[in-house]
């Protein structure tokens, strides 16, 4: 202890934190040993059923009170009518639903031409090709109608999310108390599994597109709020002062100075809104929303891999198209024209777009194939692809490899690990998590960990929560084993960094649902498929942040290491990695968040965790249970989020980054 007095106070604190964490681990190990020896009383191993408070019941009471007695249901059902009208109208335009305004469906050729022209306007011929090509592919493959069903909901949900997000963002920027209230709500919302949004949406907004649109909208609002506030806060003080000196009123300031100056961040928010909406709209298939998601769900359910693959490609193309176009919009700057340029020249693209639209629409009146690709006219190779994929999978060595991987991972790794995790007594487990939080972040985070995991224990879903956690941990570990080396190797050259980053960027735009396709293809309906789908989903941020962390190490430092005579490995190990670690930790955190998200969706494959239970609640009206399950997932995810982000922040400021 005499050593301690000579160390700096900061180090002293972290030392005792580490010691405390070690004590926790010791206590947990001891308790687990006693359990193995059969000496632990049952009530210490697992919380007895009788002690589980009826959270679900209480929540149900509250919901019912709000829903019926306070008349929320009446309100939302009224809103539903308006929303339904909007969705019907966009449905009519996009895929010809027989509703007002009875003008649709827009011919696919007209749509493709407009997409190509918008693409050209925003980002040149590459985006034109992507825009037009995506539409042509969708039509020719015979998925036009379902794709447009999806798009028609997107066309309503994304603007709604934008407007609500922007308004709340402005409010949070303007009034400190709104910010204060919104912040914690947002962090919970962002970790809440999507299934938890679905059921209340169904109950309050009717099954089908309305509920789907509402759930999608709500899910996409948080990033819009955050980007709006961020953008408004970043407006340069001189621009603000210039506005004031120009005699702006408060409203003029907002409308003419703040919002236009925050354009970039707001448009980044729009990009995120669109991407989240697409990802979620696909997932609303689980509550019976027609469209690409529903079709994919049906095809995967009946193991039609060829068709699943084709739909997957369509979804991916749509996602990449929307992402690239909205990102091109972010960087698009206004151009000036020479004085006296005529209108049609100034707005060349607009004119061209209208001409093409009208032209193709008129043409489709004469040539039916331009309006719609009928049944049997498409080029879908579903059956052939199916045979191809199944043929490939039944090739001896492929079969042997996947079979081996499946068996090995299952028998040797996953199942033993799962059983081990389940064998740890509840209090010991909580101690372990607390130790983790304590060692990395500190006492405050450790307290959160204890409270959060105790709540999970009290919810009565402990075993399923542990299985959820087991999937997350194993998948993220495997993802790190693959993703980190890939990132480290790619970061060695600029060329490869850019290539891998491009792949990561593109992969990140894919709606999570499509990650299930290769998993099911390769590993069928097994635990390994679940882990695999999470793994590839979680690998993206890990690789990406590793590369970013390593590439942003200041050049002087690597040069200094070179001049100090460090070998390549020494440089990596003692200079680059330590400096990149905080950034990598952010990637690790995101990987965990992604994993928590994916593990719930993977319930579709067949799991025994919280996701499975959640998915089951969707069929009923068990709101209370649905919420309890969702909150359990959220609490676990938040524990990791708080701990890792605190650690990364501390490390960053300690390194002076």
């Amino acid at each position, binding site marked *: 202890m005499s050593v301690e007095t000579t160390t700096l106070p900061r180090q002293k604190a972290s030392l005792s934190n580490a010691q405390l964490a070690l004590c926790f681990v010791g206590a947990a190990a001891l308790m687990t040993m006693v359990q193995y020896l059969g000496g632990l009383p049952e009530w210490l191993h697992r919380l007895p059923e009788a002690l589980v408070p009826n959270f679900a019941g209480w929540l149900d009471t509250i919901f019912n009170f709000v829903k019926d007695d306070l008349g929320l249901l009446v309100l939302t059902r009224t809103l539903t009518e308006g929303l339904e009208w909007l969705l019907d109208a966009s449905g009519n335009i996009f895929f010809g639903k027989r509703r007002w305004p009875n003008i649709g469906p827009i011919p696919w050729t007209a749509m493709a031409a407009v997409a190509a022209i918008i693409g050209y306007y925003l980002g040149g011929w590459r985006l034109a090709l992507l825009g037009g090509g995506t539409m042509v592919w969708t039509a020719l493959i015979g998925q036009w109608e379902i794709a447009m069903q999806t798009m028609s909901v997107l066309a309503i949900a994304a603007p709604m999310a934008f407007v609500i997000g922007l308004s709340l963002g402005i409010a949070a920027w303007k009034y400190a108390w709104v910010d204060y209230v919104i912040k914690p709500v947002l962090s919970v919302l962002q970790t809440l599994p999507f299934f938890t949004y679905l059921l209340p949406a169904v109950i309050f907004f009717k099954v089908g597109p309305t509920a789907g649109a509402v759930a999608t909208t709500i899910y996409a609002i948080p990033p819009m709020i955050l980007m709006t506030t961020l953008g408004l806060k970043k407006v*340069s003080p001189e621009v603000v002062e*210039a506005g004031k000196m120009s005699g702006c009123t408060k409203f003029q300031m907002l409308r003419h100075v703040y919002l*236009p100056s925050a354009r970039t961040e707001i448009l980044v928010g729009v990009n995120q809104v669109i991407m989240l909406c697409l990802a979620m709209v696909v997932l609303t298939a689980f509550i019976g929303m027609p469209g690409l998601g529903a079709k994919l769900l049906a095809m995967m359910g009946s193991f039609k891999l060829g068709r699943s693959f084709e739909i997957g490609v369509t979804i991916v193309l749509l996602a990449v198209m929307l992402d690239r176009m909205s990102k091109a919009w972010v960087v698009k700057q206004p151009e000036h024209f020479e004085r006296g340029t005529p209108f049609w020249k100034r707005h060349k693209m607009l004119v061209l777009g209208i001409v093409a639209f009208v032209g193709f629409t008129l043409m489709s009146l004469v040539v039916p194939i331009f309006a719609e690709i009928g049944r049997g006219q498409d080029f879908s190779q579903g059956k052939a692809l199916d045979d191809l994929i199944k043929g490939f999978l039944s090739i001896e060595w492929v079969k042997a490899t996947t079979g081996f991987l499946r068996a090995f991972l299952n028998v040797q790794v996953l199942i033993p690990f799962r059983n081990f995790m389940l064998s740890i007594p509840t209090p010991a487990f909580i101690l372990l998590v607390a130790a983790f939080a304590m060692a990395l972040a500190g006492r405050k985070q450790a307290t959160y960990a204890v409270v959060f995991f105790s709540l999970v224990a009290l919810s009565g879903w402990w075993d399923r929560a542990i299985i959820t956690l087991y999937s997350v941990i194993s998948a993220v570990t495997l993802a790190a084993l693959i993703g980190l080396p890939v990132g480290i190797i790619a970061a060695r050259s600029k060329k490869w960094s850019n290539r891998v980053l491009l792949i990561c960027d593109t992969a990140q735009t894919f709606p999570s649902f499509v990650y299930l396709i290769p998993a099911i293809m390769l590993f069928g309906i097994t635990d390994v498929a679940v882990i695999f789908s999470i793994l590839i989903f979680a690998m993206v941020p890990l690789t990406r942040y590793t590369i970013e962390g390593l590439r942003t190490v200041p050049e002087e430092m690597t040069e200094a290491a070179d001049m100090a005579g460090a070998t390549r490995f020494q440089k990596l190990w003692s200079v680059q990695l330590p400096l990149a670690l905080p950034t990598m930790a952010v990637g690790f955190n995101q990987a965990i968040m992604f994993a928590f998200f994916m593990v719930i969706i993977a319930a579709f494959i067949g799991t025994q965790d919280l996701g499975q239970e959640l998915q089951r609640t969707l069929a009923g009206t068990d709101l209370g249970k649905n919420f309890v399950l969702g909150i359990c997932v959220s609490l676990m995810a938040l524990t990791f989020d708080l701990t890792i982000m605190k650690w990364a922040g501390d490390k960053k400021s300690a390194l002076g980054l």
Partner: protein
Amino acid sequence: MSAQAPVISCKNVWKVFGDNPKRFLKEMNSGMSFDDIRAAGYIAGVRDVSIDVHKGEMLVIMGLSGSGKSTLVRCFSRLHDITSGTIEVEGQDIMSLAEKDLIELRRSKMGMVFQSFGLLPHRSVLENVAFPLEMRGQDKHTRRERAFEVVKLVGLEGREDYFPRELSGGQQQRVGIARSLAIEPDIWFLDEPFSALDPLIRREMQDEFLRLQQLLNKTIVFITHDFDEALRLADRIAIMKDGAVEQCDTPDQIVLHPATEYVRKFTEDVDKARVVHAGVLADKTATGEGEPVDASATVHEMARMLVNDAREMIPVKQGDAVIGALTRKSALDILLGAAS
């Protein structure tokens, strides 16, 4: 300068930043220095400043970064609310103005130019210049007319449809200047307008600025950290340090009689011959003989004559009237340094 009432008059102005500056200032004992105040957790942006700006005068506020010069000019336009003291603009206490009246004041009387231009990136040159007019609700036609006029005045004709990012720094600042002039303000604030520019462009912009001032004859408060710039432009210079004004006087007087050690350090490297004018050196009671020199001539401009001429006393004239005479020795001392 003139017998008229000052355009801006500030008395005992304090601006303190911190949690509760008003209370702090009330309880603070008067002898506290800048560092004492900082130790107490507050920052004194402006410390007990009293200064008048007269009509048509160019007052340059000079100081290093953190000296409070930008804060002071923001108090004049009430971009900052002052903690104590009074600021009167054309006889009106601006701290007593309601939001609406303040906006009206800015819309009709004040223009301001910023160090990093503060242009709105989404608006073209013309729309930026017309912005203050648009805000006060002028119709599209008149504000375009006026904007064209001012854009031409600052020499950006033909660039009206460019966007700020398409212009060089110097051109962007011309837009900033044009915008501040669009409403034909009586009072013109310039906050380090040329500091973000390259030295060559800065010089060019200073000339341009002097040309504009000749044309417009506004009341100007000009902020700079560049002493040479201050000497070049100012009618009067106020030198600030730690929020307080160290000395406020004409360039000649500051160079000849620095009030404090701090001011003296600035003047050390200055070529005084280029700053000091004959008029300042003139002794009104003395008379001389022969060809008079103009009061507005600098010692530097008189150098050749001073060296060649043998007269002890040289008469000084303002316009056509002789106002006194200067001793050749005093002028030569400034030119060559006093003989030790």
